[in-house]
């Protein structure tokens, strides 16, 4: 008993108070800053280096939904036209918003890529229960999602939790490229969620297939009847990226709504 109290004292209060304002320190590779003006004529070194075809030229653009944030394009570029910033706010509601070019700055992207609809705020703003399904994931994203509810990140302060059954969930969080062998179970889990429901695709594999987009052992037909409401890039996706994107989606970011002690939500 006394040992427990001593331990409690020793470990203190490890929670990150302002988890929505927290930043990921460098050398974390987050939002890429593209400067096409620096590209040497005819150079395609970045395109050749990219393992997932996320980088394209004419004009220079990068698909955050396919990017594994390996930085191979940054190292291959002779002119510094691609630089990864530590910006972790990578989420986007629309798939095409994930393709960024030289005109998009990190702050513009972070401020606008996740749209918060009134309907979503009304339904899930105070409580969002999520069911996680891994379909061919490498357990990297899965472990980072688990970390979202550890005592550091403490995502539950926002009323966002992972639950044990699809029947208890408002949303499905998908990781992995959808292996052919998980496709039926994923579909079953999705259909077990009551309407209205949302789908969150986490990590390069889930969003685009990532490295496995061309694999014959992958079956992505699930997305034909399950529209994705929120895409959160990463490889794996950082817990802060996930929490911030979901909170932006729910209209929970900014002002007193961040207060973990009260959990008060401001009406909008």
């Amino acid at each position, binding site marked *: 008993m006394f*040992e*427990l109290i*001593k*331990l*409690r004292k*020793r*470990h203190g209060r*490890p929670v990150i108070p302002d988890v929505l304002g927290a930043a990921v320190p460098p*050398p*974390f*590779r987050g939002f890429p800053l593209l400067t096409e003006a620096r590209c040497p004529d005819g150079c395609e070194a970045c395109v*050749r*280096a*990219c*393992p*997932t075809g996320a980088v394209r030229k004419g004009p220079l653009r990068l698909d955050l939904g396919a990017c*594994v*944030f*390996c*930085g*191979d394009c940054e*190292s291959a570029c002779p002119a510094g036209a691609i630089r*990864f910033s530590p910006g972790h706010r990578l989420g986007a509601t629309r798939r095409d918003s994930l393709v960024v070019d030289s005109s998009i700055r990190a702050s513009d992207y972070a401020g606008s890529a996740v749209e918060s609809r009134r309907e979503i705020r009304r339904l899930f703003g105070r409580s969002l229960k999520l069911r*996680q*399904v*891994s*379909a*061919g*994931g*490498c*357990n*990297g*994203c*899965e*472990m*980072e*999602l688990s*970390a979202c509810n*550890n*005592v*550091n990140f403490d995502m539950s302060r926002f009323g966002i939790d*992972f639950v*044990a*059954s*699809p029947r208890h969930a408002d949303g499905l969080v998908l990781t*992995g490229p959808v*292996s*052919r*062998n*998980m496709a*039926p*179970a994923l579909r*079953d889990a999705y259909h077990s969620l009551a309407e209205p429901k949302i789908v969150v695709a986490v990590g390069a594999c889930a969003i685009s297939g990532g*490295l*496995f987009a061309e*694999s014959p*052992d*992958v079956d992505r037909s699930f997305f034909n009847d399950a529209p994705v409401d929120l895409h959160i890039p990463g*490889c*794996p996706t950082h817990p802060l990226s996930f929490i911030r994107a979901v909170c932006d989606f729910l209209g929970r970011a900014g002002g007193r709504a961040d207060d973990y002690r009260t959990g008060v939500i401001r009406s909008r």
Partner: protein
Amino acid sequence: MSGKFLNIIHGQTARRADIPLLEIADFRQAAVAAVLQNGRIAAFFGHPLPDSQIELIAVLANDASGSLDVARTIAGKNGERYPALTPDCPQAHWFEREIAEQWGLIPEGHPWLKPIRFHAPYQPGRAPAPASAPLPGVTDYFSVKGEEIHEVAVGPVHAGIIEPGHFRFQCHGEQVFYLEIELGYQHRGIERRLRAGPDNKTIHYIETASGDSSIAHATAYCHAIEALSAARIEAGAQVLRGIALELERLANHTGDLGALAGDIGFLPTASYCGRIRGDLLNMTAILCGNRFGRGLVIPGGTAYTPEASAIRELNSRLDTAERDITSAVELLWQTGSVMARLEETGRLSAGDAQALGLVGPPARACGIPRDVRQDFPAGIFRYAQIPVSTWESGDVFARALVRWLEIQRSIAFIREQLPQACGPTGPDEALALEKDALTVALVEGWRGEVCHVALTDANGRIDHYKMVDPSFHNWFGLALAVRKNGISDFPVCNKSFNLSYCGFDL
């Protein structure tokens, strides 16, 4: 070990032509005999020859003598039969199921021949191809009959953030008589994507074999490529790789002890270890910008050289982490209610562990001093030894305690090596691989032995790449450990192994 097999030196290559081509009967007999004499199967796989015959290659490891032995045999074409090793050598059972599934060969006499990953054969054969690929989990399960016997099916979608797999329990009341573990849901075809490489994707596939073992798999791959290209690796890079590997072990072992505490409802250690695990991942992120070490280890060296300030920061965080882990973990051993749940639960005998060829903490928790860092050292582990941590009792407690002993030793290793990690690192450009060669790379990941076998073709490209995650050896150990235990102890038994689904399924 066996005169019929070719002895190769870990970290070097063998010409494929020099690998003895044995008759199947000799191959079988020599392999079975070697395993009986304290050997074990590190890898056993098939690959197609140009005439569509399937060549089987076995890599046997003898931990005591630190020797690796290789031989091959031609087992026939898709649809043909060969005498199975499994009846005389239980640890071959999953390897032979894999061979049967991939190449359509039938290991005659295999006691439980079923798919393991549920995919269509890689090569068309004599048998008419099925209309569609097999459905995962749709198969015959071992069943027990009796009036009060009931069956419990769990998965593939589990109640938590965890990968998919299917567990089929045969129970009598609360007691588990038999557990069958059916995997394959995570199969995404990594090995086949590596053929004709290396290319700009290869290292990324390797790193995603099992995300929590990114460093272990990347290091094994780099050892294989570097052996094939006779590359010299800077000492600083070897040190950095070793530090990253031990940080990976620290993070996962700490997370596992926390998760074990969580499974028995002991929240203080569960909460603190979960948090400390994050601190340890952040230490890896200081080295390379990724909490799982993605992009750090590359063929020829490491992609990053830590600044002196980063080394200082790591040192100070290591001190804090050590104090935090010590206080959180020692509480487990001091708490009677925790010990009551860990001791005598999920006990595995040393004999069974030896017969199944278990690796990593589950083997060491049965008193088997098996550790690649000692038996087949490569890189920094040739110069800096980490004592092997073992315990005798083979139960959940032993697997937890072995993790705690390893945590302490990994911390000491990292502390000792950090000052040397500042050395120059950096890859050589474009490594050219030896032609028609084979190499075996072993790395002690936090789960146990990661084994990669690379075969090159006449152009110096990868002809076949075999990855054996420690989970491939160990899943059946879990199935044995839960027998005669209450089914409610399954989670704690499962967590004490904490095996990889994706590393098995590939």
